[in-house]
């Protein structure tokens, strides 16, 4: 029973963690209330075994990605969507991770630095994500397991104004696809 309670708490944290930052409507009080549920109340939460199992799987996946550092950002040169040879090993790492677990689906986000025009950067971010996807396809990953989204220069990883910050922002960023 204790284990289930822990899972429950984990599930809540995962759920909160998954919510897009823009819509932080989940009041922080929820977790406090849920955590104070007595053993008797647990059955009434309506959380099925599958959901708990999925939460556990997600948690493990997250743990895995954190520990192994598999989903590392692929970096690009200014105004370029060519994948540098130094970055290929990162994509190969993601490729073998996806081969190892066929349930994994990913989103590749394309990002740009703050220089350049809004419209062009939105297209450039798309091409960066597509370039990384193309290499994963070459490695034998199914297209249906990969989505691409460009954010242009909307979501910088580093808000600094230095060459280093710009270099960090020119990236393809991997995320597990929670939709699938």
């Amino acid at each position, binding site marked *: 029973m204790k284990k289930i309670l822990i899972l429950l708490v984990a599930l809540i944290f995962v759920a909160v963690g998954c919510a897009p*930052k823009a819509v932080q409507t989940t009041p922080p009080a929820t977790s406090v209330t849920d955590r104070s549920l007595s053993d008797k109340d647990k059955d009434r939460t309506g959380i099925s075994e599958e959901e708990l199992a999925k939460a556990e799987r997600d948690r493990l996946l997250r743990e895995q990605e954190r520990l192994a550092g598999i989903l590392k950002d692929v970096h690009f040169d200014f105004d370029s969507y060519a994948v540098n040879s130094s970055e290929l090993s990162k994509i190969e790492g993601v490729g073998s991770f996806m081969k190892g677990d066929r349930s994994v689906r990913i989103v590749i986000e394309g990002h740009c630095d703050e220089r350049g025009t809004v419209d062009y950067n939105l297209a450039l971010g798309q*091409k960066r994500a597509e370039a990384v996807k193309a290499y994963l396809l070459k490695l034998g990953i199914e297209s249906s397991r990969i*989505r*691409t989204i460009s954010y242009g220069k909307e979501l910088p990883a580093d808000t600094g104004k230095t060459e280093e910050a710009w270099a960090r922002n020119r990236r393809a960023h991997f995320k597990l696809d929670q939709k699938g």
Partner: protein
Amino acid sequence: MKKHSFMAIVSAFAVMLMLAPVSHAKVYLTITGETFKKITIGVPYFKGEKTAGSSLEMSDLLNKDLDFSGFFITAPASLIDRELLDEGVEKGEVKFASWRSIGIDIVCKGRVSVTNGELTLEAFVYDTLDGSMVLAKRYKARQSEWRRVTHRLADDIIFAVTGEKGIMSSRVLFTAGRRNLKEIYLSDFDGQNVTRLTNYRSITLSPSLSPNGKYLAYTSYREGRPNLYVTDFDKKNEIFVDRSEGMKIGTSWLGNSTLVYSHTSGKTSTIYAFDVGSRSKKVLVRRDGILTSPTVSPDGSRLIFVSDMFGTPQVFSKTLPSGEPKRLTYHGRYNSAPAFSPKGDLVAFVANISGGFEICTMNADGSNQRVLTNDGTVNDSPQFSSCGRYIIYTSLKGGVNRLNIMLFNGDNKRTLRFTDFAEEQPRFAP
């Protein structure tokens, strides 16, 4: 690219003179050497009601508007002595010789009255050279709309003196917000009546209004990826333009109901013309790599767009429907964000010049490129006003994007501020 040429300004004004329906124009736009003379205008405090939102504030605001237009030098109040301040507004009461003696070419007199909340402004604009009347007009509105009345008077004076339509009564469409929260806004040019048009609590980008103002196109991430939508203001409904994979950005209207947009997905990019009425689309250009910022000339005969087909972003032009793309920009490794002037003769764009992204203009055939900004930051999204005299654009200052406006020759730069947020992608609303 050379710095803006004064000859071009001179010839632009020469064109204005010919077009000017008011014959007075010849008196004021004296061209001296390589530059043009601004007209000195005196606006003594308006007579009448001294309550809030009335005569004093109206004449102050009028001075600001006229100064901003770039056509005028506004005489400071300190220049105008008591006697001139106190004289009446009728022609017989104005001492033109005294006004001339302090260097004032045009004098604008106003008389304000308020009855039952209704404001009446009578404006008299004289040429001090011969005492002729340039403009005499009566404006009526609710007292709360005194700003609107003043902007209209400013635009009327600009039109009467120069033959050009002013922009003081116009509206601006733009995006504003912070990380992950960006919405579309519409505001009066002077910052009044700021209205948020969207509320998706997501990233909303690249707004553009159809020429008749009926449709608003934009890209929103609210469904988890950047999809393209059109809001129909009349029917108050929303049309899904493109929800397929990839990046979709609508940037231009061909007539009142055809949205021209770019779509980047997989290996290729495509520029489409989407008919809002029939919901059908056709391909205008398709290429490998990036195609973006499609903009149709005002007469609908040509399309300009950005492509990286030669390795770097450059501006291309294509005759519609089936001409071959012709490259317009050769200077530098980054030319993007083109926008047509309302007459279709000029194209504003952004070029990377020694590290900075600067606003430039060129003729529609790519000739006569001129650099209008020179601050080494990221300037973006240039758009002409409907009169073609102004360019509104974004400038990254202190790490925050701000809206700016300048004359089409780069003079008279001003920062505009409508909201408490960073502001981007401005356009004059039709």
